[in-house]
């Protein structure tokens, strides 16, 4: 039986440093999206806009199957860190289900340094498990 090789998608969030703004580096935090090995998709949306450092905040996670239908009952774990600095997130965020179909809440996120970050999401449901990696420049 042929097993699909695990695919890792690195989705680079493009940053827009607003040149003529008086606010801190204002990041147009577009959703991060990736496809899992079995064709499901996961989307991460920051609820902090613009996405700035040093603020505790939440993200919304949306899990869909290959037909775009929302998926409930998955276990999702999100970790992150700065590969260039050899450290992880300064907090221990947690994912919980919400009342809405296919929508999960990632709470307790904080980025404490500007620069290149990676987020890793491990999705488990009904015996299936895969990890996707997102790149994020702050």
């Amino acid at each position, binding site marked *: 039986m042929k097993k699909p090789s695990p695919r890792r998608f690195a989705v680079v969030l493009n940053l827009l*440093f*607003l*040149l*003529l*703004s*008086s*606010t*801190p*580096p*204002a990041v147009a935090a577009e959703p991060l999206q990736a496809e899992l090995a079995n064709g499901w998709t996961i989307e991460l949306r920051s609820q902090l806009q613009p996405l*700035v*450092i*040093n603020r*505790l905040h939440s993200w919304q996670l949306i899990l869909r199957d290959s037909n775009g239908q929302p998926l409930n009952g998955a276990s999702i774990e999100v970790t992150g860190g700065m590969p260039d*600095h*050899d*450290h*992880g*997130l*300064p*907090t*221990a*965020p*947690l994912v919980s289900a919400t009342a809405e179909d296919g929508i999960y809440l990632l*709470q*307790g996120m904080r980025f*404490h*340094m*500007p*620069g290149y970050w990676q987020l890793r999401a491990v999705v488990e449901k009904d015996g299936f498990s895969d990890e996707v990696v997102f790149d994020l420049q702050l």
Partner: protein
Amino acid sequence: MKTLIPLILLLAAGLGYATYQFWAPPPGSWTAAEAALIRSMSLSALPPLPADPSNRVADDPLAAELGHQLFFDERLSSTGTVSCATCHQPEHYFTDQLPLAVGKSLGPRHTPGLVGLSHSPWFYWDGRKDSQWAQALAPLEAAHEHDFSRSELASLISSDAGLTALYEKVFGALPEVPMNTAPATPDGDADKIAAWQALDAEQQQAINQIYANAGKALAAYQRKLQPGRSRFDDYADALDDSVDTRTNDSLTDTEIAGLALFIGKADCVSCHNGPLLSNHEFHNTGVLAVDGQLPPMGRYEGVRMARQDSFNCLGPYSDAKPEQCLELRFALDSNELVGAHKTPTLRNVSETAPYMHGGQIATMAEVIQHYNEAPVSMLSHNEAKPLGLRAAELRQLEAFMHSLTAPLATAPRWLQAPASAQGEQALE
């Protein structure tokens, strides 16, 4: 002629080396990303003071008045000579110029400054407290600091008409407490613990309530202590209109070059970021332990202490709902935190020597040299990497630090002992 060749070569090499070490002109312009990063460090970008849901009087003006009185009151000590202001001296940006704090006796840590600290979610060098009011309690009972006790504090507030009146305006009726008993606390020596255990539960609860409220008043006062605009802020704000590095004369060329290093090659901005030049987090930067001390576990232990603290956000004396205690709930507990200490603000840093959690490093030049070398950590690993800064660059970085000094944005009356207390003393 031939004999001159080695001499000329030597001179050329010497000139080359001198140029390498001492010639480091500032950049001509900032990239858009650099300009944005610099603007993000300006006080203009400082968000409003974060609410503290665990302290319902955090922004109550009368609570700040009460806290102001308590902060400067030396009666809050076993010797009658130690107040918060003994170590947190307003004239030195609420530090004391000593390597290690001296309250009743010599302590194990360097006195941290208080300016802008109310923006931080964690307190103490190791983050053992999750609110400014919970932080304010511990030094009162620490044997090397005030060496006071919560029972004595409750007695003092109950017996001083001025303090009682102010307390009751802020918190309502003062609960009745046993007066002038032996010093009693569950966090003291054997005698104090025995005295505490001799009290009934209701008395203990009443004393704890007054103790916690005194901390909340001290926090309300400390929220007034905010940094003022420095030359750097004027420079950063002017970058709205131009990315030319000499866009205005708020900073000298040397300081501009230092700023370029700060956000670039020296990478100070990784941790010293945002308008307070601190990410309020915990890092191991390979600082040697204080002479005679074991290398401290830092935040690794601090987060455990915060979780167990009976005065934390989830405790019975907190005004927060459990769901509001997000920092505590999502606090990291990881081996990465072994030996990690809190990033201090760099606001007014040239006026707050010595440096580090144990005052281990005497001068700014030595601090910069420490980061330039990034020595191996005694415990766990040093997150910083060697920088390879040249002599000129070390000086430029140090020059930039001087541009961060400014008088506080705090009314002068908060920076001295309260006039009312002095007035009362004068009348006596």
